[in-house]
């Protein structure tokens, strides 16, 4: 257990120390949110209606692009070989690394979402449900991105390939994430069902994705 | 005494944000300054001086044919070592013409000062 905690602590520390990787993800999220209204026009009530969609798409892309680094650095400097020879099975190593990515990058993204919601004139009332939905959805973002990152280890131009592989996996997270913010069907607790499905998606990906990632890593280490 | 009208909270919030931002800038810079000075002191204590006069002995014997004119200071960046010393070593063409006269006299004063400064310990080979 101590090895898993050591790995988790190391990865989170590394994400914050290595050249502001987290800052770049936050910056990218901000850039995506800023240019969208420049494309759609400054009409506030239009922006207000589509704000959840833009915020979620921005979050997914930001999480995805920073996920390329989950395994890449360790693969390039040989650390992954040694991690594979540690006391932890490779799937646990992959799971811990994706968890570290969620803690180091996912949560900061969720924390600045309300600030960006301000830019898009999202009604203040739905900010809490936005944050709750994002908190429930971002683990899935990190773990599914982990699969893409492990599949594209050592490949050239892995960033674009990673996006191509993983975005289809994000469709359910996106759909239920947005519907957990803007209730399509009116009703007292109409936000609840999509939110629970989002939690289910995240929990499932936290369990199953590391298995796929481990297999892909072992394949890349051959 | 000071009636800021109905939107007083916005005015105070604005000034508050500005004050906090400036305070953060000042505090981070001072903290960074202190850590760098602490690291410098720690390195000085370990006997690593900035103008360590004795170039590494091994380098001299191994490469006798290197051109004596300009060996790049170890950091490669003039900023690392004291440029007065670096500009003195740098060939004239490289140095900015306007700076030449001033830094040469400075370099002469500097080398004079160095001669009087205590010799640093020879690295134990």
């Amino acid at each position, binding site marked *: 257990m101590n090895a898993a905690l050591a790995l988790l602590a190391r990865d989170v520390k590394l994400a914050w120390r290595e050249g502001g990787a987290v800052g770049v993800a936050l910056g990218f999220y901000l850039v995506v949110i800023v240019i969208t209204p420049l494309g759609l026009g400054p009409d*506030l009530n239009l922006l207000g209606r589509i704000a959840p969609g833009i915020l979620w798409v921005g979050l997914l892309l930001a999480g995805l692009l920073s996920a390329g680094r989950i395994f890449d650095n360790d693969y390039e400097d040989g650390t992954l070989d040694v991690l594979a020879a540690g006391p932890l099975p490779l799937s646990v190593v992959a799971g811990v690394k994706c968890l570290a990515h969620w803690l180091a990058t996912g949560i900061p993204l969720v924390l600045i979402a309300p600030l960006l919601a301000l830019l898009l004139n999202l009604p203040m009332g739905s900010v809490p449900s936005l944050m709750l939905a994002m908190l429930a959805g971002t683990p899935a973002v990190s773990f599914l991105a982990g699969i893409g990152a492990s599949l594209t280890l050592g490949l050239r131009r892995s960033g674009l390939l990673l996006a191509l592989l993983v975005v289809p996996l994000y469709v359910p997270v996106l759909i239920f994430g947005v519907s957990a913010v803007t209730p399509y069907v009116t009703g007292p607790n109409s936000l609840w069902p999509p939110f629970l499905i989002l939690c289910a998606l995240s929990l499932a990906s936290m369990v199953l994705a590391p298995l796929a990632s481990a297999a892909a890593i072992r394949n890349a280490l051959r | 005494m000071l009636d800021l009208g109905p939107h007083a909270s916005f005015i105070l919030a*604005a000034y508050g944000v500005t004050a906090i931002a400036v305070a953060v800038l000042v505090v981070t810079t*001072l903290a*960074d300054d202190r850590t760098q000075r602490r690291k410098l002191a720690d390195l000085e204590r370990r006997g690593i001086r900035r103008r360590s006069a004795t170039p590494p002995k091994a380098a001299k014997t191994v490469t006798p044919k290197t051109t004596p004119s300009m060996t790049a200071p170890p950091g490669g960046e003039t900023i690392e070592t004291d440029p007065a010393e670096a500009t003195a070593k740098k060939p004239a063409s490289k140095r900015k013409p306007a700076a030449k006269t001033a830094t040469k006299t400075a370099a002469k004063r500097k080398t004079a000062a160095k001669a009087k400064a205590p010799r640093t310990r020879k690295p134990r080979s």
Partner: protein
Amino acid sequence: MISLANPTRFLGLVDKVLPWLSALVVILLGTGLYLSFFVAPPDYQQGETVRIMFIHVPAAWLAMFGYTVIAIAALGTLIWRHPLADVAAKTAAPIGATFTFVALVTGSLWGKPMWGTYWVWDARLTSMLVLFLLYLGLIALWQSIDELGRAGRAAAILALVGAINIPIIKFSVDWWNTLHQPASVFRTGGPTIDPALLTPLFVMAAGFTALFVLLHLMAMRAEILRRRVRALQQTQVERAALAEA
């Protein structure tokens, strides 16, 4: 200016100037605050909230001033190869970004009583936001390149490219804004300001600029010391390697 090329002398200069400069900043900001709160009359239209202008406009001015400092430093790095230029550029970026952020927040707080929402895609605020992104780009670039020389040159090129694009961005955002909305009703700045408001504004602007220079000098001093630490660590590594040979 010649002696500034030498970091040791620059540090000596900074240590001498800092106390005077901080005294100047305190005096200027003190009088500025006093003027803006007690002397300046409330605006006939906006009432008291116009006092936010006394920090919003200087902050916006510093956002531009900061970027021009970086652009000049970029020229210093690329053309005149001034050893302190990249130090100046690297340390000015976070300060400029902070004042841009302050300008954005104070602008939004100022707009709330008027527009009813915190953010309106007004031409000036939007270009300020894009300027903020340019700053973030510079800071991120500085952090992601380890080797000092290369980072300095890369950031300088980005700064110059940004500087050339700012007017273009400003023009296109203005056009974009008028395209979608009639000229925004919210008008400040420009000659229509009541002269009684001008004096505190200038005093505050002077105070803010002095503050910028103060913060910038302090940050440059810290950066020079950090580079010395790095160089000494390198010599320590070489010495350790030699000690065993």
